[in-house]
């Protein structure tokens, strides 16, 4: 079995996010890191490999993004991927979710994976639809938000929470699965793995290498125009209490609740 894990570099959550008003795109400068949700997808791949129920030949980390995105690939490799693929091309800048999914699907097509894994969402775009886009292009069955996955040769048994409770779904591979963060507790990379990550094979590809039709990607090729931005209706800021003396703090909370007749 060959597993591809999609990863993404995102701004560090601790750093404030903003839209660049001149371009309308997200300002992606500042501290960046591997999307924390993706570490669960890498861990899921590692557990399949180590679990022994199926033979895993290879785990390949795949990303699309600017030059700096190689850091996300190095991190993914330090967490267990055997090699990585980096799709990077100026023509791809500004792609919306559908265009990004198309370009990634083209990249994955070359790898012919038996299983494609993703994290439950991206930390920056608040997006959790890319898996479904990919699956349609790849003509594979797919499920998102999976928190338990049993793998045997050719078949996955997945559990996930949907609108009415927990669903159990059986899927015949190849398949695209996005995993929820409850599926596992990702490991920390060893120092040795971090040091060795840069030595593992990393393939850099442009849009032309994977047969991406340029007219379908980038800001021009995207089918959505994200035009104007406005501020949401102002909400009155709440009161903030820093807890230093807890007796005093709870006194203030009780008074606040009492004032609103909640006690």
């Amino acid at each position, binding site marked *: 079995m060959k597993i591809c894990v999609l990863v993404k570099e995102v701004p560090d959550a601790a750093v404030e*996010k*903003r*839209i660049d008003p001149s371009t309308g795109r*997200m300002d992606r400068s500042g501290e960046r890191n591997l999307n924390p949700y993706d570490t669960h997808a890498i861990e899921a791949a590692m557990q399949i490999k180590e679990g022994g129920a199926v033979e895993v030949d290879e785990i390949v980390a795949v990303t699309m993004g600017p030059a700096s995105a190689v850091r996300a690939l190095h991190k993914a490799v330090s967490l267990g991927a055997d090699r990585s693929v980096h799709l990077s091309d100026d023509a791809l800048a500004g792609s*919306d*979710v*559908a265009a990004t*999914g198309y370009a990634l699907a083209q990249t994955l097509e070359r790898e012919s994976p038996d299983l494609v894994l993703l994290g439950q969402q991206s930390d920056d775009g*608040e997006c*959790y*639809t*890319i898996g*479904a*886009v*990919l699956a*349609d292009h790849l003509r*594979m*069955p*797919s499920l*998102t*938000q999976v928190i338990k996955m049993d793998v045997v040769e050719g078949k996955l*048994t997945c559990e996930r*929470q*949907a*609108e*009415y*409770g*927990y*669903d*159990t*779904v*059986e*899927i*015949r591979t190849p*398949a695209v699965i996005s995993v929820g963060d409850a599926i596992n507790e990702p490991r920390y990379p060893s120092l040795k793995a971090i040091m060795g990550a840069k030595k593992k094979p990393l393939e850099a590809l442009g849009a032309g290498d994977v047969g991406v039709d340029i007219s*379908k990607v980038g800001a021009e090729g*995207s*089918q*959505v125009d994200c*035009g*104007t*931005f*406005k*501020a*949401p209706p102002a*909400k009155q800021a*709440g*009161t*903030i*209490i820093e*807890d230093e003396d*807890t007796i005093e*703090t*709870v006194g203030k*909370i*009780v008074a606040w*609740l*009492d004032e*609103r007749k909640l*006690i």
Partner: protein
Amino acid sequence: MPGILVYALHYEGAINKNSLGAVSEAARLAGELGTEAHAIVMGGDDLTDDLCASLGRYGAAKVLRAKGPEGLAQPVVDAMAKAVADGGYDYALFGGGLLGFEIGAGLAARLGAGVTMEVTAVNVDGGRLVAERPIHGDSSISSSRYKGFGIIIGRLNAFETQEAGSGAATVEDLDVELSEWSTRATMVKRGEQRGVDVDIEGADLLVAGGRGLGKAEGFEMLEQLAGTLGGAVAATRAVVDAGWFPYAAQIGQTGKTVAPKLYLAAGISGAIQHKVGMQSSENIVAINKDANAPIFEYSDLGIVGDLNKIVPKLNDAIKVKKGG
């Protein structure tokens, strides 16, 4: 010209409330555009003529009924793609939930269409639909316009349910051949309720716990506080998925929507998918040790501190207050 196609999710013979909201919204928009709103459903024998026709009350002019598995996205993508190919729709609309996100995204890929998710409002401008989507932790709102076919996926509870329709909708059976990959997923068990059945929807005061409780036992502290206040205990998906608390008490996108007088959140970061289920609460109080936690952006009272220190003392202090 039929204009807007809406997916209506159903379960055990009832249409999903967010889908009814989406049908109502589509009918309103179609009225402004001078076209029609049609709904599409997929399932088995529980999709009776009456159930389908009842969508007319919410403004659907026609309901397309396709036979297929329930609770899976890709068969619905096949059906909607067929309907779009047959009927010349310009837009597809979905209510908040989970399946709608999967179907809408898959359909975007299939049709080469534009898609926007987490939409909170849709307007008509120059004869076209414009969707508003809050971004960056709801600190800004972007508007989407579509170059061709547009797919709009609502945020949970974004579209109001309105019985503004003129009566029964016509029901038409849609023959679809499922694509090979759609048939490779099968539902083994749907809608399993994990944990005991608790009732939180009737409570005026809710004490909600998240991953910040550290372990399942952390909920004991919240049960005590809720007991003192005379309320009930609710939870985030993170702790329900972890098995710390029953699913019946989960608030958010794939759980319940509540609007109590008091929502006291302890150890909850305040992710959008949680917020959508509780943001209409009258008073929101949050206890979180991280001053940057998103929940503080929509709390009326925020306490930056360790819940393990604060919650027991708060419980004691409320007891004293109530006793005296």
